[in-house]
């Protein structure tokens, strides 16, 4: 009889997957070692193995240090060699209840290119989080490890000192506790970033695609619904919370405008005017007065930059280009926009007149984006004239003409001086012109450079190279050209994520976007850069930059620039793309593949400056 009971017990153990049969474990990992779902580290991050124990002290406590008004991040990995139910909780015993802990489940994406799993999307969960391994929705056969991202938010009012806590894993009858110790440093991270990180996007149709259930459930015009505008604001908010900004372009290459980006116009020629601001104001009002961010930890603040819908076909009809009617339509409507913005008090934002079209898309006969043929600059000059005519010089509303430049940038810097004041430059070509950023900034222009996010198949620190380069170069910012396009199936057939940094939360029952590991690492990097830069009153900025570059990848500041190539002295319409690549050989070699610990080392430098190293 006893034997019979024992056999039943064994059978139950096998049949009841909720029971934790084998030894589970809980490991803390630094942000730069991304776990795979089988208990290992993803291949690109394995070079940083020495960081594996970096979070632990001699008493096997997880030791964290954080500045006020910022985040400290780490990862927790639940390991169970056999299927098991578990629950995970992270707590910090902050007597003032100011410090907050955000827990995210890491989604493991299967990348088609190399047939490996990479964690990236972060699903917000509340602790204690209960689930099981393998995680049912991630559908990974033989999954033995589930990773979690932990953000510890240290508000500005947090008291400096030590706060203890623990991460606790319950699996079956066993409980594993990992002690945590957070040191809140006295210094606060500057609220203002020294480099602006922009996340660009085009149109709104991506929202209908990625929030298909909401879109299809809605009975009216979803693109005019409160739900739709809330979603747009949520996208801005998630980037803002991660120390970034967002741009959303509202027109196509032949001038088609989507209704939510424009006021309604009526009439032609001198009679053309704005008749309805409703959709425009619903879209932009909360962004331009900052109320869209009222619930954010960073507080309400108007967005600093925004695209206007202005293009060669809006607000003036291209039918009248070069004629008095074009000038009348353009000037009248732009003047009305200025008055409306002024009345609304939208005076903290740079309103960008930006031409994105390329002639290869057959809409217009000149390139607005990345001018190659110098003759096209005449169109910019004409729009500059029209803007001057439309806008009062003493207006508190800031209109700027922005140009995204590559081939011809050096000429454009000269020819369009005083016309274009916001430059978004190809990073590769700007690297030929070391003196340009300072010269442009000295005359009051804003200079960004552009590129794209690294894919998840690059190491975790790769994304930090973009903001660092901006800071080392002395430009104002960096633009990810596209960060909302996850591909057809990011969850099970991932394209690598070279055009996405936030994902739709709809799959997880959420009505808003969710962040990624890369976005979190980028935010933490921006915090460090803001701190590093804040020491420029105590030591020369170039020495701070030099040391950061050295710690990052053993480079010098010179390594971040290319020598001026011979092709820079021939007309840009005679350049070839392959010769540009050749001219970037120096930086390509000297900056290739920063190590996994590259940013960890820079962070340690920032801590050292602030007197907070171990």
């Amino acid at each position, binding site marked *: 009889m006893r034997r019979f009971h024992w056999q039943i017990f064994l059978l139950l153990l096998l049949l009841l997957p909720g029971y934790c049969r084998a030894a589970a474990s809980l490991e803390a990992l630094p942000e730069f070692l991304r776990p795979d779902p089988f208990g290992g580290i993803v291949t690109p991050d394995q070079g940083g193995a020495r960081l594996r124990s970096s979070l632990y002290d001699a008493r096997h406590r997880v030791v964290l240090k954080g500045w006020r008004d910022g985040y400290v991040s780490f990862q927790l990995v639940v390991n169970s060699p056999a299927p098991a139910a578990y629950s995970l909780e992270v707590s910090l015993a902050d007597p003032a209840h100011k410090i907050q802990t955000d827990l995210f489940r890491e989604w493991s994406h299967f990348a088609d290119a190399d047939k490996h799993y990479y964690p990236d999307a972060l699903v917000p969960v509340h602790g204690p989080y209960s689930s099981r391994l393998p995680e049912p929705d991630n559908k990974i056969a033989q999954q033995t490890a589930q990773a979690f991202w932990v953000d510890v938010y240290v508000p500005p009012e947090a008291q400096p000192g030590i706060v203890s806590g623990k991460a606790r894993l319950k699996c079956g009858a066993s409980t594993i506790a990992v002690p945590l110790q957070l040191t809140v440093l006295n210094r606060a991270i500057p609220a203002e970033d020294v480099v602006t990180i922009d996340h660009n996007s085009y149109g709104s149709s991506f929202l209908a695609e990625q929030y298909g259930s909401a879109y299809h459930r809605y009975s009216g015009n979803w693109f005019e619904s409160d739900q739709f505008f809330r979603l747009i604001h949520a996208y801005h908010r998630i980037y803002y919370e991660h120390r970034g900004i967002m741009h959303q372009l509202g027109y196509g290459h032949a001038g088609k405008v989507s209704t939510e980006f424009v006021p309604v116009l009526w009439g032609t020629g001198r009679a053309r005017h704005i008749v309805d601001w409703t959709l425009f104001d619903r879209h932009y009002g909360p962004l331009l007065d900052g109320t869209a961010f009222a619930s954010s930890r960073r507080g309400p603040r108007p967005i600093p930059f925004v695209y206007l819908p202005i293009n060669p076909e809006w607000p003036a009809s*291209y039918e009248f280009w070069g004629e008095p009617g074009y000038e009348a339509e353009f000037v009248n409507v732009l003047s009305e926009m200025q008055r409306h913005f002024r009345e609304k008090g939208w005076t903290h934002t740079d309103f960008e007149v930006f031409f994105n079209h390329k002639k290869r898309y057959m*809409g217009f006969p000149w390139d607005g984006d990345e001018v190659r043929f110098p003759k096209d600059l005449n169109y910019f000059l004409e729009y500059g004239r029209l803007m001057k005519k439309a806008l009062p010089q003493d207006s508190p509303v800031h209109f700027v003409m922005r140009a995204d430049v590559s081939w011809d940038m050096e000429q454009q810097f000269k020819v369009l001086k005083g016309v274009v004041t916001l430059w978004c430059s190809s990073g590769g070509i700007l690297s030929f012109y070391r003196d340009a950023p300072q010269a442009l900034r000295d005359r009051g222009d804003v200079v960004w450079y552009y590129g794209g996010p690294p894919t998840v198949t690059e190491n975790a620190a790769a994304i930090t190279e973009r903001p660092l380069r901006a800071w080392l170069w002395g430009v104002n910012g960096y633009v990810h050209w596209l960060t909302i396009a996850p591909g057809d199936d990011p969850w099970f057939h991932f394209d690598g994520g070279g055009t996405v940094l936030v994902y739709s939360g709809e799959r997880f029952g959420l009505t808003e976007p969710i962040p990624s590991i890369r976005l979190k690492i980028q935010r933490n990097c921006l915090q460090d850069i803001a701190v590093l830069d804040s020491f420029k009153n105590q030591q020369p900025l170039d020495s701070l930059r030099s040391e950061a570059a050295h710690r990052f990848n053993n480079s010098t500041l010179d390594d971040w620039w290319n020598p001026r190539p011979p092709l820079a002295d021939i007309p840009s319409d005679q350049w070839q793309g392959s010769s540009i690549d050749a001219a970037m050989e120096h930086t390509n070699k000297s900056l290739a593949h920063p190590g996994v610990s590259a940013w960890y080392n820079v962070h340690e430098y920032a801590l050292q400056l602030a007197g907070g190293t171990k």
Partner: protein
Amino acid sequence: MKTVYLVSLFLALATLAPSQDNPATTSTMRQEMESVARVGSVMVDGDVCQRIVTPLAKEYMFKVDPHDQWLAGDNYDVDDVSFNITKKTLIRLSHLASFPSDVNLWMPIDGHPGKIQMVIRNKNEMSQFWRWGDLYQDMVPQMETVLKTGQRVTVMDRPGWISVLAPVYNSLGDVVGVIEAVSRAKIDAHENVK
């Protein structure tokens, strides 16, 4: 004088067109698009069209460099005077319809008989044929018919869409291009805003 003629013609056609209050039925759309295409054949100047795409753009259009995937696009250029003259005419033609429509210009490519390229698009960004972003594409059979015969062809292959293809003549009497007068029953305000 030419302008007066144009305006009169447009006004006459606009009077014939159904008012905006009427539902744009397929037959109405077809009738109007055919009118637009017919007028377009008269008004669009084929000699000007032939000057739009520059020799440089033509030289590079079919070049492939494994080290430079954007070679053809980066060398794409147009003569803006010819482009603007033609585009303005196309825009005015589209005003003949009582509903949103576009009139696009397509042209064959010298030395590449099986290919055709979109040369001018317009503000509603509609076309039944354009593969977004392509500099050129395989010849559309219906366009080949227009180029060979000079006959207008109506295409309604995609549900809810109508395109009327019509010839563009130069001063020698040759058919040198095709205009696509196009509309659709349900306008998608967000398509192609990218």
